[in-house]
């Protein structure tokens, strides 16, 4: 009985750490991107560190704080070091947040019911009518897979174009349930080599590869774009790209493949969640360098290469 209730909760509510309207880089047209909280991977270069943890946390925006000390009345919940509050997590912070006049103290995420999320998505419906839609991202959206499938069904019913950005590190069962309701599927295949993948993301790529093999052979194969984020010294090597492409075209020679340029600006959010950015700073790849990677992929036999 208890299990059933928990399951129901899972379907009816999701933890979302951000909703960006006017998203222009996550699929066709003007989109709303929903960022689900929680991720099974721990990529060293992660761009959304606040999306890793599955729990709701309190975060502190240093730039917003006016140092009014209104929060000092909640001594049991907050410690101060160097004029910065640190939070005893897993507590109810509603009162603290309500009291903070500047909004410097906030939850990093919000719970959404299906209705609430659907209403939020529909706010920009008029913009979707000219080629846009909704994109589910994260974190890993499949971490809250049951809810994801329900919201996808709703979107399809409302004729809203749907896309997903996923690591595919999830159960095939969930994937199969979601695919009929998706119009566009972005799947990351970051590193081909088993050990390197494990070292850089904290998980084995085996499950990801199996799931990709399934989807590229399924009736949904045309909706799929496989992506590799180019991280210097990790995924951005000739060998890695060669291996990934060989693997993909062997399953489906028509597969669409895209490489995403490294973005050196990810470290900004780490301070918010009090985490350390563990990557050295690298430069973005130049046009020539990108061309080199394109050439590697083409030589390995990719037919449908998506360029920037």
């Amino acid at each position: 009985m208890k299990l059933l209730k928990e399951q129901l909760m899972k379907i009816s509510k999701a933890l979302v750490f951000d909703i960006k309207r006017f998203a222009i880089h996550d699929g066709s047209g003007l989109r709303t991107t929903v960022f689900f909280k929680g991720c099974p991977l721990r990529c060293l270069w992660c761009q959304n560190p606040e999306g890793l943890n599955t729990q709701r946390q309190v975060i502190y925006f240093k730039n917003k704080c006016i140092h009014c000390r209104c929060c000092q009345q909640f001594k049991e919940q907050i410690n101060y070091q160097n004029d910065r509050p640190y939070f005893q997590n897993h507590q109810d912070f509603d009162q603290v947040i309500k009291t903070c006049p500047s909004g410097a103290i906030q939850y990093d995420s919000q719970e959404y019911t299906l209705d609430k999320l659907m209403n939020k998505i529909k706010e920009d419906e008029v913009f979707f009518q000219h080629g846009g839609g909704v994109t589910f991202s994260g974190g890993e959206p499949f971490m809250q897979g049951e809810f994801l499938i329900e919201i996808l069904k709703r979107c399809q019913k409302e004729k809203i174009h749907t896309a997903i950005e996923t690591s595919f590190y999830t159960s095939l069962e969930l994937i199969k349930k979601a695919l009929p309701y998706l119009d566009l599927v972005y799947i990351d295949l970051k590193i081909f080599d088993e050990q390197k993948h494990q070292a850089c993301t904290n998980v084995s790529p085996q499950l990801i590869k199996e799931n990709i093999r399934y989807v590229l052979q399924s009736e949904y194969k045309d909706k799929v774009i496989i992506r590799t984020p180019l991280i210097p010294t990790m995924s951005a090597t000739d060998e890695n790209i060669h291996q990934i492409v060989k693997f993909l075209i062997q399953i489906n020679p028509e597969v669409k493949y895209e490489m995403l340029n490294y973005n050196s600006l990810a470290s900004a959010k780490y301070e918010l969640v009090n985490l350390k950015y563990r990557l050295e700073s690298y430069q973005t790849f130049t046009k020539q360098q990108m061309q080199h990677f394109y050439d590697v992929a083409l030589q390995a036999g990719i037919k449908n290469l998506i360029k920037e």
Partner: protein
Amino acid sequence: MNCLYQTKRISKLKEKMLSSKRYASIEQARIITRVYQENEELSIPKKRALSLKAALEKLEISVEDEELIVGNRTKGVRYGVVFPESGCSWINQEFETLPTRPQDQFLVKEEDIKEFREKIYPYWKGKSLEDAIKGTYGKEINEISKVVKINQKDHAQGHICPDSALWLKLGPQGLMEKAKEKLKNCKDEQKEFYECTILVLEGAVHFMQRYHDLIEREKIESLKEVGKICTNLSKRPPETFHEAVQSLWFLFVILHMESNASSFSPGRMDQYLYPYYQRDIEKGSLTKQEALEILECLWLKFNQVVYLRNQNSAKYFAGFPIGFNIAIGGVDEKGNDTYNDLSLLCLKAQEHLGLPQPNLSVRLNKNSSHELMQAAIKVVSLGSGMPQFFNDEAIIQPMIEDLGIEEKDARNYAIVGCVELTTHGNNLGWSDAAMFNLNKVLELTLNHGKCLLTKQQIGLDLGSLETYQTYQDLENAFQKQIDYFIDKMMATEKIVEKAHQDYLPTAFLSTVIDDCLEKGLDVTKGGAKYNLSGIQMIQVANLADSLAAIKQLVYDDKMISQHDLLNALQEDFKGYEIMQTMLLNKVPKYGNDVKWVDELGNQWACYFREKMKRYTNYRGGPYHTGMYTVSAHVPMGENVGASPDGRNALKPLADGGMSPVYGRDLQGPTAVLKSVSKLNNSCTTNGGLLNMKFLPEFFKTETGCLKFENFLRAFVDLKVPHIQFNVVRKEDLLDAKVHPENHQSLTIRVAGYTAYFVELAGKLQDEIIERTTYENI
């Protein structure tokens, strides 16, 4: 269109124009004064007509080597014209400060000041429009000036779109024949009107011929062809495209000479010039490149007429917004979308020149073409803030329903000045009759009718924030206070309009505004087919934010007491910084697609609009409203004390008119459009203004431009009347780094996400600034 280029002729002329110095000129004032002195016994309309005729015949004129379009109202370019009939006192007071004042400076010549003081000013004392209004109603205007800014007190009414097609079809000769014909059988009271129009049209003919004579006399080889055109136009209407453009420019020069007003706008030029263009192209006597060069010469001309305002007015309308507004695209009289080569050539000219004039507008609708939109987007991406976009779907219907304008006239709407809407060639719209500061009225409502800045009693004492038991009580008082100032404003408006009839009849303008010639009635007296007056509401965004803060934090959630908030406002938040932070952060703001807040703005805009329906203007036409401020949000803000939205005393109000307060729209551009779309379009029949900022990077790729088109198409669907874009440059980002509080909503693409620039770490900001400079993303 892509192979068209800017010729050397244009670059040379542009350079020359921009390097010339700007002076205040008294030449026309001298001529007008002489004519008035020599004809004391005649009526004002006659004296006005004779003095315009004299100016057309006597003013020193000049031409520039190689220009394809000639004519100006002063010998030098960009001269500010001293115009005694409308106002002399302010010039007398401010003449010496013209070169050094903070906004819109002009050089002056010592001998001009002397002549003005000795010969011109003494004659006009008590005889100008300005003095007449001051004399009869100055006190009343002054009493309400903190709340209502009455305009057109010392200059003639502009913001008019003449019937250029009629002018091109008939020319001054044809119009004169019409007037002469009418004069034969007219009533006695119409006689003077027709006589005046004949006088000014004679002057117009003479004016054109003088340019031919000058070119011949000075034997300027490069202008021979142009000289021929001028003499042709003095004899008959234009036949070629080049003649038509030259004729059009003469029309606008003469209108400015007659009225020295801001914003006579050409309107739908791509429509009425097209037959001339098409005929020449088909004959093979004109190429696209040649047509573009002629247009670009006209574009340069649009930048050579500036308008001299008094110091205070220059603050409200900073940067010489003279407003040669051109509207391209849009539906035709049958409702079908229409655009042509000329629409695209207009965009090309703007792309090449990037100057402040003309004020280029694109009319959009459900069926706007991809080609026109992409051409327009290309120009937007260059960052001149042009073209701006108007929405047929939002504008036409309210014109018909709220103002009783015929469908074909509404479909043929044009824009005058900045964003003011008008019908084409048959309307005295009297835009910007006054600006009504709703935020000041709220301030008075909260504080016993007393100004927070001066403590003076200027409104009704209906209580204060402390005494209103409920939010509803407060709203009731606010409504009464609004009514009080509207009544005062309307009484003043009648005085101003009457003074214009008495002192500034405009015979020449009346020949190109439909129905004046038919009716034998000057345009200031109601000769136009449509006679509107527009009042601007200032500013709904701050008002919505203030009311939302009071409603939620004071009355609903009781997080702030009535007493404390009133005190905080009185103290300009000194000692109340935490409360101010709460007001700014703990309640939603207009522009974030939060229905109840947006609705507060709309509710009062609609109240004001409805109230206007009860009044009729002096010409017998209806009042309507608009939401645009030009630069007035700054001086209007200087009149307002601290406000419940968390704004400090004296600080600017929201820019634009429909725009959210800068920095408070935190949900991105789609949310802004949604919020603005909640404003009832009946409230903006005189025009609305929405500003938005984008980064240049958005337009770098074809995909970006296509997504921008998607955005504009949604703007059309949402029935928002107007939008314009600032494409943000590096300087803005640098400023955002130093003053983050002013740039809260500036968003930037960081990685797989878009972030608020000011929330990023300093180093990261630097990096983004760098990469923006190199433009390599």
